[in-house]
């Protein structure tokens, strides 16, 4: 019974709750039973809030019992990546420097989820300040991949993806700066959508790379991603990069979701895809066959600058990070060193004690790229290459509705495999980074399992603000396949 309940989609659960056939309290209890059974092993959550969640669930159940109207996520248990501010509990960013930080306000997306009557159940683990591709950079705990407890869940939204995969929530929010929603979604066999830059307000999201960061949903299926987008997308004047409704109207992402896109043209970049391992390439080929059978036309294109995306990204993102993370000064909030010798030590020792290795590495690299004498050679050069990458996309989208490529070159790698070699870790982001540099929407959906029974992600990218069509394209594939219904089997 509990298993049956946990296998419902958000939409199915919401419908049952509003129809009064299941209560939100039952759903929250089922989710917490799952967390209590599994999360000692998986480690998806940094903090959970059972009492608060049950109280919120009771309120929603009462609303329904008394015939009051409810929101589109009525009673559905949702998890939040712990780099989004909540006015309850801590917002740690997986960092020692914010371990005890209690945000004084809610992020925009939290307000939106609340208004939609979602039940917030906990905050999920991440690479410290969202910097990483394996969640191993969390200073607070380790998260394992529910499909193989010896492998990483991906990152940086590894906790959110693992929680959805292990059915320890019905949906989660992640953030994506260079693939941090899509790559863990791919590694954990779930759906992850990075919306267009500006589509979802980042007010209350702890900043990492401000020209790249975007919040998006991690869900068990495409329909739930559309449902979550209906809740979180839209203008917010508190984020000056949030686009107005005049510029890009929000839409109902569920409308026509199950209608195939007629005359679909898909671009692929064979030279770029050749870098993926054989299992991943085979799954990609099979996925393209599914689309061909649906009448889609596949066009081979060249996008010569994609190969430079990682190099440009790790200069731009670290430069922005070095500036954004200057705010952790041991003065206003966060960790302060004990007995500093002078005021400079308040900064330099607080930061040294509070930040982990990857954060220090990126701040150092970013400061170097921006420093006098290196700015033109590194940072400015990277911004120019960024423009070339965007131009590649503009050209391709004149010929095709979307581009399909792998989410990652491999399936989930082993714990510890890349953590000592930062460059190897960065190269794992080869397929996801370009969407951030170009500000485009991109989704990862499950498209198979490799020989070791680990999930493979299929990535679809589309022009700015075409999430509605992107979700329909993803749903076409999901409607013809069963990969999204595969669940990890636990051997505890």
């Amino acid at each position, binding site marked *: 019974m509990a298993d049956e309940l946990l296998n419902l989609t958000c939409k199915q659960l919401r419908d049952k709750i509003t129809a009064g056939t299941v209560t939100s309290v039952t759903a929250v209890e089922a989710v917490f039973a799952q967390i209590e059974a599994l999360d000692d092993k998986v480690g998806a959550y940094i903090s959970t809030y059972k009492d608060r969640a049950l109280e919120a669930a009771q309120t929603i159940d009462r609303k329904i019992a008394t015939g009051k109207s409810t929101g589109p996520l009525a009673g559905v248990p949702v998890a939040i990546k712990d780099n989004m501010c909540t006015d309850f509990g801590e917002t740690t960013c997986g960092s020692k420097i914010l371990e005890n*930080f*209690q945000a*004084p*306000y809610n992020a925009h997306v939290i307000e939106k989820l609340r208004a939609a009557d979602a039940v917030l159940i906990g905050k999920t683990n991440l690479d410290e300040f969202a910097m990483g591709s394996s969640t191993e950079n969390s200073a607070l705990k380790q998260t394992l991949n529910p499909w193989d407890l010896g492998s990483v869940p991906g990152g940086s939204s590894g906790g959110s993806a693992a929680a959805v995969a292990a059915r320890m929530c019905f949906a989660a929010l992640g953030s994506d700066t260079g693939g941090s929603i899509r790559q863990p979604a791919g590694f954990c066999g779930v759906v992850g959508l990075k919306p267009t*830059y500006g589509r979802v307000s980042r007010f209350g999201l702890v900043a990492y790379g401000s*020209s790249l960061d975007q919040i998006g949903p991690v869900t068990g299926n495409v329909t739930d991603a559309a449902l979550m987008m209906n809740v979180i997308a839209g203008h917010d004047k508190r984020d*000056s*990069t949030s*686009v107005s409704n005049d*510029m890009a109207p929000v839409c109902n992402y569920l409308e026509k979701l199950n209608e195939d896109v007629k005359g679909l043209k898909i671009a692929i970049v064979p030279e770029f895809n050749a870098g993926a391992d054989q299992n991943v390439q085979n799954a990609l080929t099979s996925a393209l066959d599914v689309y061909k059978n649906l009448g889609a036309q596949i066009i081979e294109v060249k996008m010569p*600058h994609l*190969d*430079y995306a990682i*190099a*440009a990204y*790790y*200069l731009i993102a670290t430069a922005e990070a*070095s500036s954004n993370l*200057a705010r952790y*000064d*041991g*003065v*206003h*909030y966060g*960790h*302060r060193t004990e007995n*500093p010798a*002078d*005021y*400079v*030590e308040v900064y*330099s*020792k607080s*930061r*040294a004690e509070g*930040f982990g*290795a990857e954060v*220090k*590495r990126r*701040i*150092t*690299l970013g*400061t*170097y790229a921006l420093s006098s004498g290196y700015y033109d050679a*590194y940072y*400015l*050069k*990277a*911004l*120019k*290459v*960024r*423009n*070339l990458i*965007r131009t590649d996309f503009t050209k391709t989208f004149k010929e095709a509705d979307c581009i399909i490529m792998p989410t990652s070159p491999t399936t989930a790698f082993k714990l510890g495999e890349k953590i000592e*070699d*930062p*460059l190897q870790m*960065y190269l794992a982001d080869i397929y996801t980074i370009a969407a951030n540099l170009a*500000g485009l929407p991109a989704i990862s959906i499950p498209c198979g399992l490799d020989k070791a029974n680990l999930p493979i992600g299929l990535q679809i990218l589309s022009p700015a603000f075409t999430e509605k069509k992107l979700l329909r394209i993803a749903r076409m594939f999901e409607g013809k396949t069963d990969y999204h219904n595969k669940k990890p089997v636990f051997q505890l």
Partner: protein
Amino acid sequence: MAKKIDETQVRRVAKLARLDLTDDEVARFSTQLSAILGYVEKLNELDTDSVEPLAHCLPMHNVFREDVITESLDTELALRNAPQHFESFFKVPKILDEDSGA
């Protein structure tokens, strides 16, 4: 081959970033960041002389709002996470010497 970024440069940059790195971290970062900077050299394969830099992707420039007073964060809440505070101020160690004349 000389490292792209030697230990002296790592120390200089860390000082700019107000990061008190240990000797071990300096040595490790010099090696790791040199490898990363070696990789990003590939950007120089591209001729970008006539390319404009792209700092961010939206066709938006200045975003203005009406200059009116709105609600802001309550003082008590703003100070709640401060390592130290005194009345309505953030408290820090003394930043000037006794004989600095300040």
